[in-house]
């Protein structure tokens, strides 16, 4: 057998003939075939010619091919049995032989020489050593079919190596359909390169005349060119499609708005990063779960789903979604469904977060409501205060009228007290809803002193001692009337808690509130009394409106108003009340923030 060459152009001749027998003895020919029939035709001609001429044949084939060959040979009247007994005919199973000569799927040279070399030698020694040997093997095709292209090439090489030490003609065959992919081209050429002759499949070899074959070659060349061109175009289209798909996937995946698909079982099929980030879940915690589990209100979700199932297109559907940290996001949902053959496939949901917008709208509504209530309160206060002044004046005149007896005078005093309550309520209500002007610099010290001066008569009559611990003027930019109202309420409460005397301690100092980055500087005002104290049962209610421990005297609005004012000033108000050595001490602490320069406040 000729030496195996590596260059296709040097050694491989494209055989114009399909008859294996026409090829040079000692060569290594590969037949590509489309139909098994074609393979059997060639093989039966090869073996039948050899046996008929008294030569030897070795066939290593699959069982179906062996059976088909045997039938053909018997039909030609060839006595294969006698030929076998004479040592001129060897028939081996391709799969079994392959398994014996490979180690871990790789053809082993020693085993190959032992298993294949033996029969080749014996065949060559038959007829007194004069027999020519032809061999057919399709173990290589089996290796190729198993995806072991390199192993197939190695086996071809082992055959070629054997051919250097023994003289025989070798033929192998591959179904051409095995090389139907572009990536097979390189290996196909390598396989061809291991052979001295290549026989194309029967679609070419059946062409009889040279002209037909040349025409066929031209057609094949054109088709190859067209295929290459089409392949290039297809690749371009495919690349373009892939780019487009990537772009679309990128748009959905990285969109700022949440996008998701939900299946017919209401389970989430896919969602983008924006929605996961909005709600705080990982993909595993969200995808695959029922969408309704993330809605705060089931009836809202059910209405939404019902609309989708009616194939409605949904725009700006308001909903509330539960986040991983327990908070709630308010969203608007656009959605419709993909339907195929009347079956719902999945939703196309777009989810927009409107939480901040809603909060702002609510704040604006609150502010407007507050302003409206302020205006109403102002009007009411005005309408109350006008006649109130006249009533108070009237009772003043009545009280001082000389004709009034003591009993009647007592009645006027009752009227005075009740009118004082009316005044107080009107004042408190107006103070709470007052639509304040711009903040101005206010000395908290002066305000406090003014309030203490206003209460001087009560302080004296209750025999209260006032202690001051003042370390700052406490000038802040704030709303003077409001802050005065707070001090009036707190000082008034402290005095009323000490009807039989006690100590009223007022403290005014700069202060830092909070920790680390949330620390704020401001002024702290403490108003402490040694009065009756606040019972533990009431302490959680004292800032509630209309809660009072002062029976007929209290309106229950003072602390509620004060807290509202302090919070509007971005401050805090806290209290503690404790018993110490049989005496109660109640202290209210008000913090009014500054910016550290003592010049601004919310």
């Amino acid at each position, binding site marked *: 057998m000729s030496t195996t060459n590596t260059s296709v152009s040097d050694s491989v001749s494209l055989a114009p003939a399909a008859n294996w027998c026409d090829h040079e003895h000692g060569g290594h020919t590969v037949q590509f075939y489309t139909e098994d029939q074609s393979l059997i035709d060639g093989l039966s001609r090869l073996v039948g010619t050899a046996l008929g001429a008294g030569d030897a044949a070795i066939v290593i084939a699959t069982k179906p091919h062996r059976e088909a060959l045997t039938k053909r040979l018997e039909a030609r009247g060839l006595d294969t049995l006698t030929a076998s007994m004479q040592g001129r005919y060897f028939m081996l199973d391709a799969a079994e032989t392959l398994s014996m000569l490979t180690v871990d799927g790789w053809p082993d040279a020693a085993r190959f020489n032992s298993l294949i070399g033996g029969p080749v030698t014996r065949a060559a020694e038959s007829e007194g050593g004069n027999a020519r040997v032809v061999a057919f093997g399709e173990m290589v095709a089996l290796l190729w079919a198993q995806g072991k292209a390199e192993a197939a090439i190695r086996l071809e090489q082992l055959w070629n190596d054997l051919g250097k030490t023994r003289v025989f003609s070798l033929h192998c065959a591959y179904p051409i359909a095995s090389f139907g992919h572009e990536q097979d081209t390189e290996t196909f050429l390598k396989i061809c390169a291991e052979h001295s002759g290549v026989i194309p499949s029967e679609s070419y070899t059946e062409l009889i005349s040279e002209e037909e074959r040349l025409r066929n070659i031209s057609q094949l060349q054109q088709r190859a060119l067209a295929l290459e061109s089409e392949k290039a175009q297809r690749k371009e289209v495919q690349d373009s499609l892939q780019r487009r798909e990537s772009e679309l996937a990128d748009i959905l995946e990285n969109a700022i708005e949440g996008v998701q698909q939900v299946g017919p079982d209401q389970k989430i099929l896919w969602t983008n990063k924006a929605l996961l980030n909005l709600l705080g879940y990982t993909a595993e915690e969200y995808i695959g779960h029922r969408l309704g589990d993330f809605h705060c209100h089931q009836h809202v979700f059910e209405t939404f789903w019902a609309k989708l199932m009616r194939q409605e297109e949904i725009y700006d559907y308001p909903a509330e979604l539960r986040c991983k940290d327990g908070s709630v996001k308010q969203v608007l949902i656009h959605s419709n469904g993909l339907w195929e053959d009347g079956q719902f496939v999945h939703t196309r949901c777009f989810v927009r977060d409107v939480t901040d917008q809603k909060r702002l709208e609510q704040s604006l509504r609150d502010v407007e409501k507050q302003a409206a209530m302020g205006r109403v309160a102002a009007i009411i206060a005005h309408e109350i205060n006008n006649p109130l002044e006249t009533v108070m004046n009237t009772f*003043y005149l009545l009280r001082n009228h000389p004709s009034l007896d003591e009993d009647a005078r007592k009645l006027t005093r009752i009227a005075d007290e009740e009118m004082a309550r009316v005044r107080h309520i009107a004042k408190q209500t107006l103070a709470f809803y007052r639509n304040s002007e711009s903040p101005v610099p206010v000395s908290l010290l002066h305000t406090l002193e003014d309030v203490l001066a206003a209460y001087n008569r009560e302080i004296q009559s209750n025999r209260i001692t006032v202690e001051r611990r003042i370390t700052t003027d406490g000038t802040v930019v704030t709303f003077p*009337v409001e802050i005065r109202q707070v001090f009036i309420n707190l000082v008034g409460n402290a005095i009323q808690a000490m009807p039989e005397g006690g100590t009223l301690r007022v403290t005014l100092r700069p202060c830092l509130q909070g920790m680390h980055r949330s620390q704020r500087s401001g002024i702290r005002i403490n108003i402490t009394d040694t009065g009756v104290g606040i019972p533990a049962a009431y302490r959680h209610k004292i800032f509630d409106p209309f809660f009072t421990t002062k029976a007929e005297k209290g309106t229950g609005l003072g602390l509620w108003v004060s807290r509202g004012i302090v919070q509007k000033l971005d401050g805090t108000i806290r209290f503690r009340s404790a018993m110490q050595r049989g005496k109660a001490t109640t202290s209210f602490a008000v913090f009014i923030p500054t910016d550290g320069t003592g010049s601004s406040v919310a």
Partner: protein
Amino acid sequence: MPTILCVDDEPTALAVRKRVLESAGYQVAAERSAEEAIRLFRSEVFDLVILDYWMPNMNGLALAREFKRINPAVPIVIFSALSPLPDETIGVADRWILKDEGPEYLLNALKSLLQAHS
């Protein structure tokens, strides 16, 4: 005794307030219309003026400005059912008193103001 000019568009309130002031010993001229009040202020001598802030046709502040223009020495009290004191009253009204403070408060305030201006 000091003479007070009291201006308010509400007749009942004006009449009762006049009696309260008179009970404290003041002589009181009460007017419901701003024009009459101006005419009276020009023609007679007053020690103090009390003006209602919110009146139709002319508010107390405008009237106060007119009185100050005529005789800046006479102290003016703006009497109102509402607070706070608007910035514009600074330099015009000598005192701003809320109607809900009560008659004693008003009388004490008038007394202090008159003493300060005597």
